[in-house]
């Protein structure tokens, strides 16, 4: 085996198996720092060994076993120097079965630890990408447009809190599970949205974040097959992702849903997303992510914008508003009302919402006013939307709309 391909192989295993290895070793040693250090050692060893001997039949198993043995050797040396931390970790390891056994549970525990509400939201995102997703600190820093030392500091601080405050490494008890699961799904969706927002930061890396969020979504769906909201979130991300190629025009400009070339939608992702939505419907335990996925599935069904079943979308928004009322949901519902009942009734709904800070609110108002022929007011609303968005691609889109009013 040649050297570059062995390196590539180790890197692939590293990325794919990092979360699994961390999860097992955190359980064994009860400490994230020890687990991470041991895995780094094992991957360094893998790079040396696999180059000459080729990778073993089960690379992940090899990494976990090697990491565990290395850590125990090191902890024994440190424990003999009366290091209490090392002694505690060794004692912990003695009680834990070394095999990979319930890896499923191990990884789920790690997800719940990383997304614990006692951690700041930005720290939850960073920890999840680092420990579960196996991204490097540098990669996470680039994706979130912060300097690497800042991201490193954020991770160190979060891991310190997990250790010092003893944030548990386990699946929450039933009473806490709904809220904790919501927090986990929020982290995954935050990662996805960070990658989805067009035009800010390095585009390639941002798209990686979407892929990473979908990978996490697939993992969660595999770990928690009985949670329809997990399935709903995965479906939602797949359906949004399916439109990536159609969503940007020449020069990176934003193409709204109604004007997209639907032939450029990724049919495989659409089919997978729609299949998940159908499975959610059969469960009949609706939640916000499932409903948003279902709304996107209705859009995906329409061969062109005119064929969109807005009545169905409006019914889904009614359900969404009943389950999880929020002004943002009411705003999106108004868009469906405009298609079903006309821009007049929609504008009446929109004007009753307290969303002045949000550029989307003004953009939707502007569009409704334009359709009602109230051009001067529409122009004002576009201006309000433009001053409130920091995203250059969206701002360019709104400026084009504003210019089009005059013609």
């Amino acid at each position: 085996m040649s050297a570059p391909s062995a390196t590539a192989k180790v890197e692939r295993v590293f990325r794919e198996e990092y979360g699994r290895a961390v999860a097992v070793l955190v359980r064994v040693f009860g400490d994230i720092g020890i687990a991470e250090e041991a895995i780094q050692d094992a991957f360094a060893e893998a790079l040396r060994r696999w180059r000459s001997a080729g990778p073993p039949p089960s690379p992940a198993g090899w990494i976990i076993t090697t990491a565990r043995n290395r850590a125990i050797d090191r902890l024994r040396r440190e424990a003999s120097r009366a290091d209490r931390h090392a002694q505690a970790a060794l004692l912990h390891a003695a009680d834990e079965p070394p095999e990979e056994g319930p890896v499923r549970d191990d990884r789920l525990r790690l997800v719940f630890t990383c997304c614990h509400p006692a951690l700041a939201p930005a720290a939850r995102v960073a920890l999840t990408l680092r420990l579960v997703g196996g991204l490097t600190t540098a990669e996470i820093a680039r994706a979130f447009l912060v300097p690497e030392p800042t991201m490193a500091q954020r991770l160190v601080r979060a891991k310190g809190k997990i250790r010092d405050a003893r944030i548990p490494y386990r699946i929450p008890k039933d009473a806490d599970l709904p809220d904790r699961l919501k927090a986990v799904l929020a982290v995954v969706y935050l990662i996805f949205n960070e990658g989805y927002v067009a035009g800010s930061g390095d585009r390639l890396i941002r798209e990686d974040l979407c892929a990473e969020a979908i990978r996490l979504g697939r993992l969660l769906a595999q770990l928690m097959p009985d949670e329809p909201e997990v399935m709903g979130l995965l479906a939602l991300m797949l359906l949004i992702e399916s439109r990536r190629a159609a969503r940007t025009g020449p020069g990176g400009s934003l193409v709204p849903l109604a004007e997209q070339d639907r032939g450029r939608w990724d049919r495989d992702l659409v089919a997978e997303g729609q299949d998940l939505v159908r499975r959610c419907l059969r469960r009949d335990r609706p939640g916000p992510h499932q409903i948003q996925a279902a709304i996107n599935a209705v859009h995906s069904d329409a061969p062109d914008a005119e064929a969109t079943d807005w009545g169905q979308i409006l019914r889904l928004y009614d359900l969404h508003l009943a389950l999880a009322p929020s002004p943002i949901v009411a705003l999106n519902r108004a868009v469906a009302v405009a298609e079903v009942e006309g821009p007049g009734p929609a504008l009446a709904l929109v004007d009753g919402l307290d969303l002045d800070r949000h550029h989307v609110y003004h953009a939707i108002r502007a569009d409704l006013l334009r359709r009602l022929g109230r051009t001067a007011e529409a122009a004002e609303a576009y201006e309000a939307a433009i001053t409130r968005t920091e995203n250059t691609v969206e701002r360019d889109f709104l400026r084009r709309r504003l210019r089009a009013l005059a013609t």
Partner: protein
Amino acid sequence: MKQYMLSVYQPDGAPPPSVDLEKIMNEVEAWRQEVKDAGEWVFTGRLHAPGTATVVRLRDDEMLITDGPFIEGKEHIGGFTIVQVADLDAALDWAEKFIRIAGLPVEVRPLLDED
């Protein structure tokens, strides 16, 4: 097991007349008994108003004594309980039960391990 300090933050001054203090104190007492029955109670300290506090500090080799709390604010620590539990989630559970009774925010903070 790990120890946590649950500090209760309350607004300065007397509680509004709508608050049934006696009922709350009885329920807090029942809460404390529940922590004790679970074998997870270590210590409770209830504090006088911050106006009763005195701060002592050293300035140029001279001991300086001043009236009032170290930090002036709109809220102060009204009291604290130390619990000994398995992990943060268990400490948060006790805090949540307390908040449902008293309606006041609680800071949950781990104690350094002493051994």
